[in-house]
């Protein structure tokens, strides 16, 4: 275990990002998909913070990470609202059921 550099953080963020992407691609449960997106955003945040510390040297990354969190909150809110609305009408949270429109 050598020194932990910027690259390590970036590797981790990439891994987390694509785990999240995998969740979006693989899972059917809309809640899990939503959480996977959250994980992706967190991976992005990690990248921002790591860059801020080891590359840019400014705190801009921190601010942006804050904005991303705010956005994540907003998205979570709206996403859950849509989910609730959908659940009321359809009683399902499976993405695979959302196929009324196709072709």
């Amino acid at each position: 275990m050598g020194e932990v550099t910027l690259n390590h953080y970036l590797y981790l963020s990439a891994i987390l990002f694509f785990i999240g992407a995998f969740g979006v691609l693989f899972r059917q449960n809309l809640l899990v998909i939503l959480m996977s997106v959250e994980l992706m955003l967190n991976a992005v945040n990690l990248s921002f913070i790591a860059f801020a510390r080891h590359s840019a040297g400014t705190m801009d990354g921190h601010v942006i990470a804050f904005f991303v969190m705010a956005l994540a909150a907003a998205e979570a809110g709206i996403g859950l609202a849509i989910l609730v609305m959908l659940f009321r009408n359809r009683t399902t949270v499976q993405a695979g059921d959302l196929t009324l429109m196709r072709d």
Partner: protein
Amino acid sequence: MEDIRPMSNLLWIIPVAPLAGAVLNGLLALIYSGREKGPNERLVSLIGCAAPLLSFAVVVRLFMAMRGMAAEARIFESTLFTWIAAGPVQIDFAYWVDALSMTMLLVVTGVGSLIHIYSTGYMHGDRGFARFFSYLNLFMFAMLTLVMAKNLPLLFVGWEGVGLCSYLLIGFWYKDIANAAAGKKAFIVNRVGDFAFLIGMFILFMVTMNLGNATLDVPELRAMAAVHHEAFAKVAVAACILLFIGACGKSAQIPLYVWLPDAMAGPTPVSALIHAATMVTAGVYMIARLNFVYEMAPAASAVVAVVGAATAIFAASIGFAQRDIKKVLAYSTVSQLGYMFLAVGVGAYAAGVFHLVTHAFFKACLFLGAGSVIHGLSGEQDMFRMGQLSKHMKTTWLTFLISAIAIAGIPPLAGFFSKDEILWSVFNAHVGPAWLPRVLWVVGLATAGMTAFYVFRAVFLTFHGKDNVSHEAKHHLHESPPAMTMPLIVLAAGAAVVGCLGVPAAIGGSNIFHHWLEPVFAGHAGGHGVGVGMGASHGAVTIAAAAESHGSAQLEIILMIVSVVVATAGILFARLLYVQMPGAAAAFTTRLGGFYTLVFNKYYIDELYERAIVRPGYAIADKLMFRLIDAGIIEGIVNGLGITARLFGASFRLLQSGVVRTYAFFMLMGFLYLVYELVR
């Protein structure tokens, strides 16, 4: 010398008078088309007959004037306006009359007028009376334009015009679809010839254009041909053969003769005027007109002669077995036209034209006589249902008989002189290999005998022999009105006497006709020493005039006697079969068996054309082109593109599964692609 300009100024009247008649009668016909009754027949007859008669009068006046002119100056000319003007193609609407055209004009207007008069009787009571005269007048216009045209395109106008009128008149009784089909057949077969004619014309045009003076004017062509001999000689054979194919179409020669027998579907005066006396001779006229080109193409001339001879004997043989009186005459016409081509083919232009003139008289008379018979028998045309009509239709019988003798070539009637001149010219000709003229002569002689046979077969079956007339027909049987008999008489008289215009020197004649046409044909009589025949032998092209100089008069007289004997034998044989031993004909027929059937069915030539050209052509057009290429391949590709696009659409829409993760998956794949492309 008389100033010819006022005379030339009269030229336009000749074609325009019938044109005016055609328009007037045509309008009358159209105006009355919706009504119960047609227009007044007298008025129509008046217009219809006055027009050709006026032309005839002008022609006669011009003829008189021309006779008074020096032989070389015998030309009337009148340019009406510029017809086509495009770059080097400058074609005037110009009329031009020389001795040859004048001869034709006399025949056309003269015989034409008589037939018009005859028609007033023949067509009496027909619903299409006015229409008929309109067409007939239009025909006169076209024929006169053909004859008087100064240049080939204008000649082509007449050429096509007569074809059109022929088409219209054959299909005159269009109610029977067969008549209309016959008209169409005539037109289309003619068009095949016209196709070749056009190309022949183009060849001549190219020659003149390359010489820097693009023209199709006949006199100019003639002048240029005289000067630029080499240039013309190079293409002369091709041009001549092509033009001759055109003539084959119009003049019903092998292989394009098939339309003429069918053309008998038209009213009989039409058969007389168009399909015997005038239009069908246009081919002969055209070749005579362009003699200076044919002079340069001995090979082509040989072809003309051979085809003419072949047609002559071939058609005559078919004439043997026909039952329909008009068909007999039709094949006879084909055969006689073959004779004329034989003549022009061996360079005996004057003889050919002379035969054309005499033929116009006796064949018109024969047709009109036949028409009179048909008229009398209420439309019956089968000779085996006639007989003994000489008792009922004296005038008709007599005139018919005179013409028959004339065509059979019995002296001193017209046919004898013209036919004999041809045979004599052929005998002396230098065409093709040395044996060819002799063969052609034999063929011509045989044809003469056959002609005598089948014509008299018709005479005997119709007017003599056994009375086979049906009961109803007999009831109405009558001699035709004077309007019909009068022209018969005039024509028969003509058939009897016009021969004297061409009495050969051998028997003390002066051959007036020949001298009259000399300026037209003489200029080139062997003048250039073109090679004759298939080989390289150089010698003068033979024309009748030349033949006279080195043929011996004695031999000529001997040949005359031979031909008269042959003709008489033909007549006697016919008498034997159809008058003296009525059963013999039938027995003879049975003996011949299959051959008779073959001949009776015209050697199945029509069927051959039908099977070999028409049906395969239609099948190719329909199955191969329309259904396979057009609807199948081209449309298939066009629609296939559309269908492919839609198929793609249909398959791509399947990707649109509605499942979110699929969508996300494609996004990720797209992202991978972007990364791959950008980072690589």
